[in-house]
């Protein structure tokens, strides 16, 4: 696969994962479903998974960059599988609502698995002796769009998580802790 094609695929990968994170933000703010601590860790894994493709866009495609994304995907799979197992026995309840019969943590596990397969495929198609060691300028449209898109999403996640949890997140969040505290409405 040529370096230019690899960069295009990496760009699409970033947009895809960014889309998933935008969906989770819509569910939080549009539908009022607050994320649990495990959901937040899954979001973190999604963000870190985009770092590999972002580094590929900026510094050329390298195996080391893909490795960062694979580690993040494995971390995300571990967390989402834990949450699936928590609720897998019928009658043990669930967290949040379902989309096409699957809960969001199950969808997260599916996305992490697919992402890991995609990264493995891109690694397989990557030539072993790549000569693409250029540093691409920040003014490159693909780099600018991908970095600004993910930067905005991650900054939103920082603020949303801080408003919801402060420094310590409750197991079953029901409100924005910091907002209630500042208004003097917190229980107890």
């Amino acid at each position: 696969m040529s370096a230019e094609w690899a960069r295009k695929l990496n760009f699409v990968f970033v947009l895809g994962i960014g889309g998933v994170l935008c969906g989770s933000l819509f569910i939080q703010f549009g539908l009022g479903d607050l994320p649990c601590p495990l959901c937040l860790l899954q979001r973190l894994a999604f963000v870190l998974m985009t770092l590999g493709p972002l580094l590929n866009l900026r510094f050329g495609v390298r195996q080391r960059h893909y490795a960062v994304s694979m580690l993040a995907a494995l971390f995300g799979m571990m967390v989402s599988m834990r949450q699936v197992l928590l609720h897998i026995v019928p009658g043990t309840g669930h967290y949040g609502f379902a989309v096409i019969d699957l809960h969001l943590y199950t969808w997260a596990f599916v996305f992490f698995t697919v992402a890991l397969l995609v990264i493995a495929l891109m690694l397989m198609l990557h030539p072993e002796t790549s000569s693409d060691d250029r540093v691409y300028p920040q003014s490159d449209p693909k780099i600018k769009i991908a970095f600004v898109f993910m930067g905005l999403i991650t900054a939103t996640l920082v603020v949303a998580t801080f408003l919801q949890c402060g420094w310590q997140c409750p197991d079953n969040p029901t409100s924005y802790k910091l907002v209630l505290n500042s208004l003097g409405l917190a229980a107890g």
Partner: protein
Amino acid sequence: MTTILFLLALLALALAWWGKRHLSIAVALVSIVIGAAWFWHHVTSAIKVDL
């Protein structure tokens, strides 16, 4: 804790943007390791595990 992890992720993105490739990877790995450790603590404190 999760807020700090997201801040580290944001820092990793910013470092990649500014051209600090190795530092960006290092910060991302630190974030993954702390996240995994926190997750493991969450698992072992919530249930009695017998490995």
